Every structure is written in C-alpha cells, then in structure tokens.
C-alpha cells in the first residue's frame, strides 16, 4: 500500500473510531486516536494475519496490551474483514461481544486483555514457543506509556532479553498522557530508551503518527539479531482532532453531537488535503 493510501486509511479509521464511540457513548478516545497509525501500519503492512489464516499456527501474533484502546483495534479488524463493520453498532451494548476491552469472542482478537502489564509476558511466552517450534512467525504487543510502571512488564522484559527473543517486538504508544495527568508527573519513566537498552532490548524511536517512519521501523525488525526490539512511538493523544490533541480530558471523553460533527469535518478536510 502506498503511504498516501495508508494515510487515507488512518483518517477513515479515525472517523470510524469517533463514530462508534459516539454511538456507544463510551470509549478511550485519545489513546485510540494516538495508536491508529501504529495499528494501520501493523495490520496493512506488517502482520501476517488475516481472516483466512487466523487459525494457522504460523500466523503472526498481535496482543494489545493497552486493551482499553480497543476501538482502534475494532475498526481496523472490521476493515480487514474479520467481521462486518455494522457489528460495531452494538459496541458496549447489552450482550455485545464488542465490549470496552478486547476479547477472543471478537474474530481477529488474539488474547483477552484489559488489565495493564499483561501483553508483554504473554507475548514473551508466544515468542519462546515460536523458537521452540522453529517457526518464523513474529510476535507484537502494543503498550501504553502509562502502563509501563506495572512491574510485570519489566519481569517480561528481562526474560525476553534473556531468551534472545528477536522475534518479539513491543511498541510503546508514548502519547505522554494518562488518566490523571501527564505520565511524567504521575510516574516518570524517562529516559525510556535507556531503560529498555539496560534491559537488553534493541530500541528505535519514531514519530508514531508518521506512516513512513513506522513502516521503516517495522521493516528493520529485528533491530539487532539476538535481541527483542522495542519501538518507542512518540504520538499525540487525540491525534487528528484539533480540540482533542494533547488534552487530558479526552482520555475517555465522549464528544457531544456538535463536537462530533466538528471532528468529522476536520478529518474530512484532512482527507481532501492529502
């Protein structure tokens, strides 16, 4: 896919994220918008995952550790044909499978997540299994910068380096805001690159809202033979909607009708400008 086509997809995804969040009157808006481009590039350029091969043991694995940003995952999975997009009209409604965190009841979801700090240990196990079975599949997890203080992440980081899991890639969606305040104020994790390096990981930092930078980073995997890779993706929370960008209240804020219309207009204008 060309960069322009991917950029169009990102805008399409953002429009849908907002549509279904408005419809459900719930969702993690800011983080879904910050991670949209990462999911776009992963599912359209990187992952060997499709509705046809999803039961194959050779498929790549993607586990969304920051499960609360499920709306971004849902719209991408719908676009990839895992289920009809209209299913998302049930999101967060009574008896819907399309709830506020990923579950395997939704086609295309690899693991149930939602509690933070769980993706990396699970992916470490998956990557060890691939090495045991001499399989070529790769394992990816998307983490939020706000979930990094969970100690389980660092337990897994140690073991992934210990077992030289160069088939494992963690992506940190570093949008610098979490529910209470800026992440640096709640619990500072900087300098993040040095921490991962000290744990034995190969690190790349990219603009996580830049399609070309993301494509280049994923194409360079593994960054170092014999080491797990981490992409620190610097992103903007609420990306693509002027009044949501870098605004704490949109962590899980739901737009009203007027705000929604403005957001859609801005995204349409961005689409026209491409």
């Amino acid at each position: 896919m060309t960069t322009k086509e991917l950029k169009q997809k990102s805008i399409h995804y953002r429009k849908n994220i907002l549509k279904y969040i408005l419809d459900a009157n719930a969702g993690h808006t800011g983080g879904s918008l910050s991670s949209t481009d990462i999911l776009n590039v992963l599912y359209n350029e990187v992952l060997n995952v499709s509705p046809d091969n999803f039961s194959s043991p050779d498929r790549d694995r993607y586990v969304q550790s920051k499960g609360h940003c499920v709306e971004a995952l849902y719209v991408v999975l719908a676009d990839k044909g895992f289920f009809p997009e209209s299913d998302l009209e049930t999101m967060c409604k009574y008896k819907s499978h399309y709830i506020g965190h990923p579950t395997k009841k939704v086609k295309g979801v690899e693991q149930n997540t939602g509690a933070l700090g769980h993706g990396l240990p699970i992916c470490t196990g998956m990557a060890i299994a691939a090495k045991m079975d001499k399989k070529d599949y790769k394992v990816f997890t998307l983490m939020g910068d706000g979930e990094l203080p969970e100690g389980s992440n660092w337990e897994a980081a140690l073991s992934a380096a210990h077992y030289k899991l160069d088939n494992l890639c963690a992506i940190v969606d570093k949008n610098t805001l979490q529910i209470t305040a800026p992440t640096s104020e709640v619990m500072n994790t900087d300098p993040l690159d040095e921490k991962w390096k000290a744990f034995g990981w190969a690190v790349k930092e990219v603009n996580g809202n830049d399609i070309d930078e993301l494509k280049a980073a994923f194409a360079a995997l593994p960054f170092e033979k014999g080491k797990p890779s981490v992409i620190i993706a610097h992103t903007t929370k609420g990306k693509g909607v002027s009044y949501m960008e870098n605004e704490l209240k949109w962590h899980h804020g739901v737009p009203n009708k007027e705000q929604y219309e403005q957001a859609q207009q801005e995204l349409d204008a961005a689409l026209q400008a491409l």
Partner: protein
Amino acid sequence: MAAEVKFSEGADNPNQDVFSETLQRLAESDKNIIAVTSDSRGSGKLVPFGKKFPEQIVEVGIAEQNLVGVAAGLASCGKKVFAVSPACFLTARSLEQIKNDICYSNNPATVVGISAGVSYGALGSTHHSLHDFAVLRAINNIIIVTPADNFETEKATELAAASKVPVYLRFGKKVMPKLKEDNSDGFEFGKGRLITEGDDVAIIANGETVYPAVKAAEKLKANGIAVTVVSMHTIKPLDTKLILSLSKKCKGIVTVEEHSINGGLGEAVASFLMQSGILKPFKIMGIPDEYTVAGPQGDIFKHYGISEDGISDKVMKLLK
C-alpha cells in the same frame, strides 16, 4: 488402606516427587510438555526434568507474574504447560495473570502450586497458602485439584496434561502414604474417591488431610462408628452427586482441609447442602481465620485438630 502407617512417617513418596516423575514420563513421548519455573525447580523436584529435557523447561527467575503470563502465551501456541511455583506466591502474586491470561483467555495451562497449605510450616504465614481454594473458586474456568496420595497425583498430572481447560494442581512436600491398595475404581476430575465406607458419618477431606481423616475413621470404627472418608480431590467442579448421596445415608458430615475455613472445601460443601435443603450436623475443619502458629506441618495440623484425635473428637461431638 495403609492402616499400619503413621501419619508423619509415611510409606510412599511426596506428591511433588510423583508429579515430577509423571511429568518426565509424559515429556518423553510429547515434546509439547513444558515446565515453566520461577527459580522453583529445586523445590518443585524438577531438577531431573530440567536435566533430561533442557529444551522443555523455561526458567523465568523469581517473577511469578511473568511465570503465569509466559505460561499463558506458551499454552496459546499449543504447548501443554505446567507453571510451577510455591502455591503461596503463585495464587496471590500472580492471581490476576491466572484470572485473565489463563482462565479468561482460556489458555489451558496447568498452574501447579507446590509446597501448599502449611507445608512450609516453620517459614511463617508469608509462605503459607491458605487462601488459594477460596480465590480460585471465585474464578471461572479452572479445575481445582488437590490430590491426596501418589496415585491421585499421578492421575491428576496425566489428566491436567490432556485438559482443554485450565487446571490448578496443589500439593505439598510430605511423604504421602498409599490410601488404597486397590485403585481400580480410577480417578476422574470432579469425582470424589471413596477411601473408607460407613453409614454413620461422612468425612469429606482433601489433599494431605485425607490421611489423618482415615486414621480418625479407624479410631471411630473401634468405637462402633462407621465412617465414610472421601478424598474430595477436586473442589471445582464439586462432586455434588456424591455429597448428596452421603448426606442421605449419614447422620452428620465433617469436612477437613489444609486451608482457611473461609471459602474452601467446607464452605463449598455447606453451600451445596444448604441450597439443596439438607440440614445435617455439619462441621468445617481447617485453619481458623488467623495467622497460624509456626512449626512443622504435622504440629500445625495437630494444633488445629487436623489429626487422628482431633478429627475423631470432632465427629464424636457432632454425633452427640
């Protein structure tokens, strides 16, 4: 029944050794059998396993959350995983990983709580697991099993390896005597095992408390009281059919477990009886709601009445 064997002396092997030997046997013909350890291969008796199958053991260091997360990831890729760690840490520190990564995602690994209950008696309450049945009973999609003797341990390990749903196996360090000479009645998860049969009283015990229950039954028999002793190795799903039939024929029921009296086997049985409209003389024996006295496991058992005399006294009182 090994009636001549005294509790604390034993005639067989610790269940943990039998678990390890069974796992080695299974691993010989199945490369998907994987042990995951958290610096626990020594206490889990898995050193020989690690030497024999170095490609089938994953060490994560002292990091129980990662232990269970890694186990879940391996299980999701088709491995038959046994995540082995002292029960006290495994079912507390990594409870969220058991709940979400193993049970909720249905990655059918076996979580193995070693040195369970008060096996580490003298090490104090940090090292005791008297909460594990209670917390795991409230988590959906896990079979909870505590085998009583070597036969049950071997069978439970085999069944766990083949299970399509997660399993919690829990056992201790003590040398366990053979409960029955004839095991032809088999072993199934969710089906209590009759050790002795009698119509006066039923003692429903599990794990390492079954043997003192059997000794109590022998003493009671000498006093003219016929006792059924059940090894209720599976707490969930509970063998309610057996409990119902025992409640119909016996005058009273006593439960015994190496666990807090809150939330374990006893309350599971009580809940079933109450909700079935059955009111009988009933007593739950276990560890009271306190940080236990310290000391060897046998002494702690005796302190709380989990002994031949303690259990038989309780039965006598119940019948009065």
